[in-house]
């Protein structure tokens, strides 16, 4: 009954490969996010989708392509992986708007290592 679940939890892959991370939330939220946490623990938003529509797209290389088949799922596909892509990728969800229902919930993270 995990609220925000992402798979895989760990991923080790070679440079140049293409990989995907999947995320699902069962909280009934209308908005989902991808965040990246680097080796210095700094957390930065990458993308946000509201009801399957892209609403935030930070300055992320276009090798990263999010896809939201429905409002409960947000997947992240990464092409031509580079060493600098090694990080922990967190999926999250919330309701859009103000108020305590705007609280954001995070998945457990996906540890990506590019060798």
């Amino acid at each position, binding site marked *: 009954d995990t609220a925000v679940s992402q798979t895989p939890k760990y991923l080790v892959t070679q440079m140049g490969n293409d990989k995907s991370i999947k995320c699902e939330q069962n909280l009934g939220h209308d908005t989902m996010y991808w965040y990246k946490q680097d080796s210095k623990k*700094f957390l930065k938003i990458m993308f946000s989708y509201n009801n399957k529509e892209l609403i935030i797209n930070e300055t992320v290389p276009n090798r990263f392509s999010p896809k939201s088949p429905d409002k409960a799922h947000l997947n992240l596909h990464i092409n031509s992986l580079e060493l600098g892509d090694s990080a922990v990728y*967190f999926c999250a969800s919330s309701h859009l708007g103000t108020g305590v229902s705007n609280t954001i919930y995070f998945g457990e993270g996906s540890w990506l290592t590019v060798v």
Partner: protein
Amino acid sequence: GIQVEQSPPDLILQEGANSTLRCNFSDSVNNLQWFHQNPWGQLINLFYIPSGTKQNGRLSATTVATERYSLLYISSSQTTDSGVYFCAVEPFNTDKLIFGTGTRLQVFP
């Protein structure tokens, strides 16, 4: 863009001690949340607190929005409180949370 600074960057405590973590932000915000990232990497939501004071057990938080800061108080700290504490703010009209630099807390028995 908005700057979110947290202090201290590192904090070492003995079990039972109290502590105060601070979050300063450079512009008005719609939303402020505190998170705890445990040693296993999980991000746990502690408080949704754009203004005012809230308490949850040994933890409490206060946000003074007009002065652009928030404080997280941890009383009678336990080893399980170890980890990194983040505040995150949502500037007006952005719909995105900007995370602070974090405070790494280590509590020793």
